[in-house]
Every structure is written in C-alpha cells, then in structure tokens.
C-alpha cells in the first residue's frame, strides 16, 4: 500500500481515540468545558453506560451564536491563544480537541445560549458532519447531548466493558470533579445504578460525605493551608486519621490547581507522611488539593491531562508531606482513645510520656452533633429501586480446571522463623525457606475456592448484625457480584440508602471487625490482584485479608500447622499470584557453597 495522507475523517477518528477512550472520558471533557464556562450546577444524565446517551447541562456562560460552529473545529478553543499562554494554563481544557473528538465519533446535539444574547442556538453534528444549525430558545448555559458514542468505531466499541463498569467509571469521574469543586453542585443520573448529587455548598467535608459516606467524612482530618509564604505550594484538603486505613490507594485523590491528577510521586509523599502511623500495605484516605503558580506545572503532558509535570518536584513533595504530617500530629495525637493496649503505637505512648498524664483523655476531634445531622442530610447517594438490577455476569460457571499434577511437597521439619516473615524448614534434600504470608494465602485461597465450588460456604453468623456504610463503588460491586460474595460466606442485606447489614461472615475470617473486613475485601476485589474472573478475585481477596501477615511472630506449633496445610495444597509452590511460597537450597548446593565437594 503506498503511503498517502489519511482522509480527514480517518485522522479525526484516530485523534478522537486519544482523547475519548470511553464514555467516562467524554463525560470528563464535557464537565471540564462546563466548569471552564463558570457553571455552578452541572447535571449529567447517562443511558446505556454512556454509549447510548450522555447529556450534560450546565448553567455556565454559554457559547455566543456566531462561535458555535467554530467550537466543533479541531484546535479551536477560547482558552489559549498564544504559545506563551501554554506556560500558565489556568483553565481545565485548552487543547481544543474535546468537542471535535467527541463529535467525530457520535451524534452531538448542542443547545446553548450566551449570557449576553437573547436567543440561543441549536447545533447538531453527526459523526463529524454538521447537520443542523438553527436559532432556538434556551436558558443561559449549555446542554450537550451525545448519542451513539463510538457507533462508527467498532474497534473502540468492542473494548467497552459492561454497562455497569462504564457507569462506575463515569461515577468515579463525576465524583472526582465534585471533590475538586465543592462549590459546584453536581448531579449524576444514570439509568442503572445509583444516583449521585453533591451539595455544592463549598464545603469539602459535605462532598466527602456524599462520596465516601458519612462515617468516613466525619472522621477525616482538616489540612489547612499554611499562610507563611505565598511562594510555596499551598496544600489543603482532608486526610484520614491513621485508624481509618484502607487496603488500596483508590481513596486517595490529588488535585493540582483543582485538576485531578495521577502522580506516583504525590502518592508516595502522602504515604510517607503516614510512615510509622500505619501498617505496611495499608493506605490512607485523602482529598488533597495543591495550589501552585500556573507556570510551575505542565499539564500538557498527556492528552487526557491526567498526568502532570512539576517544575519543582521536591518542593511539592515536601509541602505535601509536611501538610499531611501536620494534620496528623495536630488532630490525631492518639490513634484511638478507647484502645487500651499500652505501647501498641509509638505516638500513643509518646503523648502520654511528654504530657505526664497517666491516662489518655484527649477526646478525638469530631464534628458536633448538629454538623453530623447536616452531613447526614446532604449525603446524597440515593438508591433507585426501579433501576436497581443485578448485572448478569458472563460465564458464571467456573471452567473445569485442567488437572494439575499434585505438586507434592516433601515432608518438612520446621526449624524456626527468620525476620518474622519466613519459616525455615529442613527437607530430605536440603533447606527450605517458606514465605509465611504467601504460603497462608495459598492455603486460604484453595480453601475458599473449594468451598465456593462445592457451594458450601461456612458462614459464622453474627450475634449482632454489623452495620456498614458503603461508598458508591462498593455498592456497585456488591450489587454486581453479590452472588459471588454471598457464595463465599458473606450474608449481607441492604438496610436503606448506602447502609447494609452484615449478618454473617465467612468462618475463615475469624475474629475482627466484620464491616472493616467487608470493605477490605471489596477494595481488594476492585483491585483484582491481577485475576480476571470475579470468582478468583473474590477468593483471592478473602485469602489475602485472612492470611497471616509478614511480621507476625509464629509459634513452632503454628509453623508446623502451616507447613502441613501447605503440603495439602494442590499448588503448594506458588501463592495465588504465582510468586513462590518457598525457596529451596539443596544439599548439593550447600555442599558446593561450603566447598565440601
């Protein structure tokens, strides 16, 4: 095939693919336009996971009638005019790609009225072709309706996930903007799943209540910006006290100049601030805003603008860490007042030692009762009973596993524990080192799977049902995968709104807070641990949650029991992820190393 220039319709679709990856990215681009237009109310309607219809209405300034057509041209924008402007981008959008990209792969209807004009415009584009442009009556602001997204791009359509997944991605996108713009009222009305509304009062804690639930919002600690000098980056927002830890990083949001960003460096700074307060592999929750001079940050590094570059990375790292640490030290001197273990946490004991007080009495800073009521009122997730449906899961029947030859372990004699992480054992041919967490994870994984396959979950019922508030993502997950979660031994029933009752837990979990266990397991399931099928994800999550951790001191008896259970496993040599559970040092290797042969 000779080389030739692509036809405009092909090249525009390729470009569109970069910006508009899935319905959620269209929602994101359109919300950014609304925000840049100064809207204070943005409502998002979604049907069929966004591929059928996305409608975004705002009360922003609108688009002047004579500029509407231009708005659909590629690289047409009102936000940047010169190269110099790129050095200090203040608006969310600037590339001039969003509208043309969306309209290239869908049917877009735009109804808008500019605030200083008396008549509005109705403009229609089908797959990049203008099909209508007429005056129309409309309130100030813009309403964009996107229909049949990717209809003409089967390659993209194929890779869209289930409706439920796409909706939950849209929810994530909307909630992120709600967190970044507490003063803007966001509404999300999907045809399936849960509705969301942020109060738009400018109170970040109220938005957190709407997104993560009231309990979490109440517990969060304020990070107030230090006003020492204006040059340093300003860091503010809400972070969780160390006692509110989570199993993954999905509860951490960073906003740089109110733009949601993904940045490993920032996460690391946040986690560093919790160092010593939080167990390993546990993560805080946080909504962290960073305000920087616009010229100090390059947002033009990625078409979807999720990644940013900083001019002074170290300074920002320090500022974030300091602000978080400050919040932790100021508000959270004692991890949990009622917790009575002495010497359990370094901060606990230190406070007592320095203050000279014998009994810790510092009450935890909590919102007042009236604030609690107010938060409860505005926590806006409402369930839509008519639309609440469980999404069928493809291929529920587990595939018959290929028979794996039993990877027999030799009989092992336990010698001891190294670094409270590895078990040292002797076998017929040399020495074995066993990773206690990986080994136990394998044992639990196979046990959970066996019970699930035999559909004989062992459920320990609770004396008193545990009440748990779930965030929208967890609710989605529970709704979609409820059957699997039930088959593993959780007995859960809805209790109105975002509240659920846990009546029974998998017996394998043992003691511990059932609500916390459920949230951990949902987090781990969302993360997936690299597994494709939901059954495996769920089994892995329970195994990971209930497996003993590295760092736990084991008695000889416990180590013997663990190795014995590992010997009984079908695949004892690897953990569910495929990492080794043990390392073998053969006798001949030992002899060789010591120069005995």
């Amino acid at each position, binding site marked *: 095939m000779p080389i030739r220039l692509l036809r405009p319709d092909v090249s525009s679709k390729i470009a569109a693919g970069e910006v508009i990856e899935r319905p959620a990215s269209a929602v994101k681009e359109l919300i950014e336009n609304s925000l840049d237009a100064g809207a204070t109310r943005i409502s998002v309607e979604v049907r069929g996971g966004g591929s059928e219809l996305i409608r975004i209405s705002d009360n922003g300034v609108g688009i002047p009638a004579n500029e509407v057509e231009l708005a659909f041209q590629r690289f047409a924008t009102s936000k940047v005019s010169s190269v110099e402007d790129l050095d200090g981008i203040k608006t969310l959008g600037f590339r001039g790609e969003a509208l043309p990209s969306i309209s290239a792969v869908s049917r877009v209807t735009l109804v808008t009225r500019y605030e200083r004009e008396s008549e509005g415009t109705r403009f229609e584009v089908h797959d990049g072709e203008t099909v209508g442009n007429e005056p129309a009556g409309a309130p100030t602001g813009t309403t964009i309706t996107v229909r049949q997204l990717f209809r003409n791009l089967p390659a993209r359509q194929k890779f869209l996930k289930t409706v439920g997944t796409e909706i939950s991605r849209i929810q994530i996108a909307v909630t992120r903007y709600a967190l970044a713009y507490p003063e803007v009222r966001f509404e999300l009305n999907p045809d399936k799943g849960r509705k969301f509304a942020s109060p738009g009062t400018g109170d970040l804690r109220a938005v957190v209540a709407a997104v993560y639930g009231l309990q979490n919002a109440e517990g969060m600690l304020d990070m107030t910006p230090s006003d020492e000098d204006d040059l340093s980056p300003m860091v503010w927002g809400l972070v969780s006290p160390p006692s509110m830890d989570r199993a993954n990083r999905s509860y951490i949001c960073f906003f740089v100049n109110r733009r949601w960003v993904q940045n490993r460096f920032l996460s690391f700074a946040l986690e560093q601030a919790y160092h010593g307060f939080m167990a390993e592999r546990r993560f805080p929750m946080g909504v962290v805003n960073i305000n920087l001079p616009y010229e100090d940050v390059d947002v033009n590094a990625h078409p979807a603008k999720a990644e940013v570059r900083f001019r002074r990375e170290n300074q920002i790292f320090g500022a974030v860490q300091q602000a978080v640490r400050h919040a932790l030290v100021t508000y959270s001197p004692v991890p949990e007042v009622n917790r009575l273990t002495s010497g359990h946490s370094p901060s606990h004991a230190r406070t*007592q030692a320095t203050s000279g007080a*014998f009994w810790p009495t510092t009450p935890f800073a909590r919102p007042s009762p009236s604030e609690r009521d107010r938060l409860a009122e505005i926590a806006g997730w409402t369930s839509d009973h008519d639309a609440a449906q469980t999404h069928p899961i493809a291929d529920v029947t587990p595939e018959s596993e290929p028979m794996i030859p039993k990877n027999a372990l030799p009989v092992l004699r336990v010698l001891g524990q190294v670094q409270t992480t590895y078990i040292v054992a002797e076998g017929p041919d040399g020495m074995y080192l066993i990773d206690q967490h990986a080994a136990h994870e394998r044992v639990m994984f196979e046990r959970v799977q*066996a019970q699930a396959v035999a559909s*004989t979950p062992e459920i*320990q019922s609770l004396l008193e049902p545990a009440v748990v508030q779930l965030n929208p993502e967890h609710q989605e997950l529970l709704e979609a995968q409820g059957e699997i979660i039930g088959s593993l031994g959780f007995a859960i029933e809805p209790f109105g709104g975002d509240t659920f009752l846990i009546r029974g837990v998998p017996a394998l979990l043992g003691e511990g807070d059932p609500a916390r266990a459920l949230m951990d397991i949902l987090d781990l399931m969302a993360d997936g641990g690299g597994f494709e099928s939901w059954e495996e994800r769920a089994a892995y999550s329970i195994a990971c949650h209930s497996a003993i951790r590295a760092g736990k001191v084991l008695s000889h008896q416990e180590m013997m029991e663990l190795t014995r259970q590992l010997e009984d496993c079908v695949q004892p040599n690897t953990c569910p992820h495929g990492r080794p559970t043990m390392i073998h040092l053969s006798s001949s290797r030992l002899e060789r190393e010591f120069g005995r042969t």
Partner: protein
Amino acid sequence: MQLSCLQENLSRGLSVVQRAVATRTTLPITQNVLLSTDNSRLKLAATNLEIAISTWIGAQVEEEGSITIPARLLTEFVNSLPAERIDIAMNPQPLGLDLECARFEAHINGRDADDFPPIPTVESGVIGKISSSVLKDAITHVAFAAATEESRPVLTGIKVDLKGDSFTFAAADGFRLAVYEGKLAEAVSEDVSFIMPARAFQEVNRLIGSDDTTIEFTVTPSKSQALFRLENVELVSQLIQGAFPNYSQLIPEGHDTRAVVDRTAFLSATRTASIFARDGSGIVRVKVLPAENGSSGTIEISSRAEELGDNEGKIDASVEGDESKIAFNSKYLSEVLDVLGSGEIALETTTSSSPGVIRPLSKEGYIHVVMPMFVQW
C-alpha cells in the same frame, strides 16, 4: 531508703505486681517496679498504663525512701536467693539498690521514683463489696467470651451493671454472649454501669486466693477507673469508654427444642468432634433427636474434614420438643462447656440459623448464647 524484709515476702510481693509490669513498651520505666516505704511496710507497685497493681509486704524500715528498679532483674535475683532476711539500702550514686541476703549481695541500678507514672488513686465514687468466690466464679464464666481483637474496643471488656445488691456481668465478642447474674455482699451506694477490660478482670481473678474474703471495689464518678481492694493488694484499672451493645435483646426469648445433657459427656464429645473439625473452620454439627419408641433422646455430634474423613458421637439427653440441627464453631462450644462445672446443662435451640442457648441447670443466673454457623447439612 533502708529496710529489711524476708526473701519469701519480697518474692511473693514481686510475683503479685509482676503481671502489671509492661512487657513491650516505648516508656521503659514501666518495665520497672516502684519500691517505696509506707509506714512500716514496703510497698511494691507496677503499671502498664492500663492496669496498676500495688501490694504491701511487712518490712523493718530504717529510713524512708522510694526508687524504681527493673522488675524482671529484681524478681529473678530475689527468687534465686535463699529464704532468709534481705537487707535493702538505696545507693544515691549511681542511683540504685544494694541488696544483701546471706552471703549474696548485689547492686541494681534504678531510676528516680519521680519519673514513674503516678499510680492513680481512687478516693471517691461508688463503693461496693463482693465475696471473692462469687467474683471469681463470675469472671470465670464470662471473661473468655470477651473479644481479644482490638477492632471494637468495647467488646474487649466486661459490661458490669450494679443495681442494689445484685450485679450482672456480660461479655460478647460478636459471635457469642455470656451473661452472669449474682448477688453482691453489700448493696452499692448507687446503681452504676461500666465496662471493665476483660484482661484486667482476669488479673483480679488471678489475685484472688483460695480463702473466701470480701473484696471492696470503687468506681470513680467519671467511670474512668475502678479500684479493687484485696488483702494487701490493690488493682486499679482504666475502664473502657463507649456504648456496650444492648445484649438483653440478643438473648432468644423462647425455644423449640430443649435438650438436657451431662456437661462432661457433652464436652468430651465436642472435643472428639473438634479433632476432625480442625482443618476446616472448626465446625461441629449438633443434631438433637427426641426420644422415640422407648429409647431415650440423644444428641449426635459430628464433624467432617474434606478428603480426610468424618466422625460422629452420641450422648444421651432428655429432649423436649422437635428434632433440631445446629452447627457451631467447636471452639465456642467447648470453651463454654469447659467453664461450666459438672452437672447437667440445657441446650436450647429454635432453628439452625437462630442462636443456640446453653444454661447450666445448677446455676440459674448464667446464660450463654452462641451464634450458629450456616452449613450444608
């Protein structure tokens, strides 16, 4: 400080306070024991900031004073000495104690008594009296059901309700509930409720000797601390703050099946079944069969282990009501049967998914609720 005392008294005193010595701590001085003269006695005290134990032993005091000494070192040294008189003198530079006993002598470095966390004094509050044997029995029947996990702090405690001359102890860990009702030796000055850490109660239990005495206790008006005064020993515990679940509503009101069995036979059958249950989640299945055609009623206790095998045991029971099936975690079943004295007990059940209730026939005030496990039958 200068004094003399007998080795066996000092050794016994140290063993009493030793349980309150902190083991793992970031406040190293809490690993010390505080020695101070108190009139003509030697007072020993230790605290881990959760509980504090003080005891007094007879001594011949020559010179007043106080000091703190590493508890473990002192205890081990004193225990190794012959049963003779020990002369103790404080040495100001380096700060420490000189001990002399028979032909042994030692110098142990210490720290200033002022650095020691103040042992709280409980002066006023609700005062009550209880017989030591009654208290011991109550703690034994309830404390094991408290949670050991710290995730819900209130559940690591025992809820104590004092009303007139009667008391109620309750403990629950999310899967079971133990409630003990009894009588105080003397009515309390005022009705009061509080949550005492189960661990602290276990220590009180340990301190109670075989002689039946009367124990006086005081709860501070703020309900933040409680003091238990035994003979020559005082234990002060921090109380747990928070709301204990309203447990009375968790006790089933009625039952469909009631089986009365010999506790010892039931316990040994449960233990046998638990051998097979060990690999799973400790599930034992209990089947209650009413009397039929002249044969007596029975309880069948069975368990099975995937791929390994199964077992079944039968014990005689007098059964009222219908046949019933219920599964329990063998740990919960054997732990409660373990603390119940010999005699007959009643197992009351309704459905296999509703709580099972165990009551000793000889002890009216005690009730134990165990949540079942949902299993395939």
